């Protein structure tokens, strides 16, 4: 009988939905499910996870876990692995998850696969599917030896919604860390708030140079009365400021219409816009991952399509 250890995550005092997604994945695989929850003053959250399908929940509760650090969390995870000898360890692929998971894998000399969106059971061996080459390809992976460690993409599946008796057990662990957390800066408000826009026209690397945002994209933005957004590479290159960035590390948007221009669709961008009401994507590469989330796709040269579209919109509006 195999055993899966779920590493839960608390964000701003509540259990992350991603943790319940791990519960769903673990239960689907079968076998025993145990969980680990790390934090300070989190007894109630441990009970909540137990009732929501986390099985036996080990609670590592210590003032040293007030803020996440890789050092302290790795200690708790190693202690839980020692106590439970799991065959599989599931961790959410969040900024904390991807920070600590490889450290634990190296410490345990264990195989790790990151950012998986599907786990299937082949006999008694799990097979993991994940994206590669920034979403251009998918790959199926296997891990030899146990424990196997996998970080799982948040939102890739529905959370577990059943209830269960479960149980809670304290995990006695120290929480020493060489790294000290000084504080958290929240996102700057105002400036260029895309979260309330009805229409967003976003540009990517396909626009080729910064001037084209003004010369090619801006006329369409104005014709539609839209706001301009951008993908990460554009902001990294300094073509537009950070508050234009749509994606997991920028703004998460849900406009009525999202037009992605010359954006290939790396996962971190898709996370930020895939829940838009209607998505039009314009890209010269028919295999661009952006077409997976688009409702309407144009395979073509944006330098021809965008000016034509701006003109057609203006004509239709009688401008």
């Amino acid at each position, binding site marked *: 009988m195999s055993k899966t250890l779920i590493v839960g995550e608390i964000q701003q005092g509540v259990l992350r939905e991603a943790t319940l997604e791990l519960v769903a994945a673990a239960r689907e695989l079968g076998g025993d499910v145990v969980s680990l929850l790390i934090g300070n003053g989190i007894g109630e959250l441990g009970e909540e996870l137990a009732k929501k399908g986390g099985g036996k929940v080990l609670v590592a509760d210590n003032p040293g876990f007030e803020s996440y650090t*890789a050092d302290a969390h790795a200690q708790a995870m190693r202690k839980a692995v020692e106590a439970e000898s799991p065959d599989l360890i599931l961790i959410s692929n*969040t*900024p904390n998850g*991807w*920070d600590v998971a*490889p450290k634990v*894998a*190296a*410490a345990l*000399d264990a*195989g*790790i696969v*990151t950012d998986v969106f599907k786990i299937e059971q082949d006999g008694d061996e799990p*097979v993991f599917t994940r994206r*590669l*080459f*920034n979403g251009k*390809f998918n*790959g199926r*992976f*296997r*891990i*030899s030896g146990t424990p196997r460690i996998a970080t799982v993409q948040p939102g890739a599946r529905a959370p577990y919604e059943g209830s269960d008796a479960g149980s809670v057990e304290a995990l006695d662990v120290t929480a020493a*860390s*060489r*790294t*000290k*957390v*000084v*504080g958290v*800066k*929240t996102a*700057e408000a105002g400036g260029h708030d895309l979260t309330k826009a009805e*229409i967003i026209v976003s540009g990517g*690397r396909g626009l080729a140079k910064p001037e084209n945002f003004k010369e090619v994209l801006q006329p369409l933005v104005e014709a*539609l009365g839209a706001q301009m957004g951008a993908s*990460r*590479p554009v*902001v990294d290159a300094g073509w537009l400021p950070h508050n234009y960035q749509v994606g*997991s*590390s*920028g*703004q998460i948007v849900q406009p009525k*219409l999202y037009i992605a221009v010359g954006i290939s669709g790396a996962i971190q961008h898709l996370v930020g816009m895939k829940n838009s009401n209607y998505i039009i*994507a314009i890209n010269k590469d028919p295999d661009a*991952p952006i077409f*997976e989330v*688009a409702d*309407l*796709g*144009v*395979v073509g*040269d944006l330098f*021809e*399509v965008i*000016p034509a*579209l701006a003109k*057609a*919109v203006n004509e*239709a509006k009688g401008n």
Partner: protein
Amino acid sequence: MKKILVCLKQVPHKDARLDVRSDGSWIQDDNIKFEINDYDTYALEEALRLKDQGEAEVVVATVGPERAAQALRTALGMGADRAIHIWDDALAETDGLGIAKALAAAAKDENFDIVFTGLMSDDANCAVTGPMLAELLGIPHITAVVKTEFKNGDVEVERELEGGALEVASLPQPCLLAVQTGINEVRYASLKGIMQAKKKPLDKKDLGELGLDAAAVAPKLTVEKIFVPPKGAGAEIIEGPADEVASKLVGKIKELGLF
């Protein structure tokens, strides 16, 4: 004098056309252009800025086949002082942990003050080598670094969280910083730099010279096959002359009631 290590990987060029091999084992990479992984160029720039500010030696290291020497030459041309090229046929199929073990073996007696890596590579997208290397070297690490400030023996960094939030954290040196893209503006190699690079040391090391063997770097993670993602219900695709495409799009936008 500070000693800084930058680990980099040579990956397919951003604009290279990528196709899957007929057996699905990986991409066809015989006839494509390669470049330094984007994330790693930011890591290198961060190290070179420290060097610009004072006394520091910047060492670049890579694990990769013969062609990867070009990535090291480029890094030397940008201003790194020397390079370590690790390769062995036994590394061809290894995973992130095997690469981290090889890098750790090369780095362990050098006593680096700071190790920089990119957050991830643009090919495999695993994002594991940096934290693994730190663990094997026994030093703390932090990932997704978007700002660094070096003070006395410590380094204060900003780490990217979600939704634009940033964590401010302080690490003692030595430590490993896995940097996010956009942290700085990456310089180009000057012609003079490229000429000078030819005289800079580039040491080749195989597993034996690192005190490792094939068993130590045998992969635990193996790829069964890679493939183009199946298209979902996904997009209705339209092609054709720009005017026709534009009028279809206008029709759709009207349907949505947006003007």
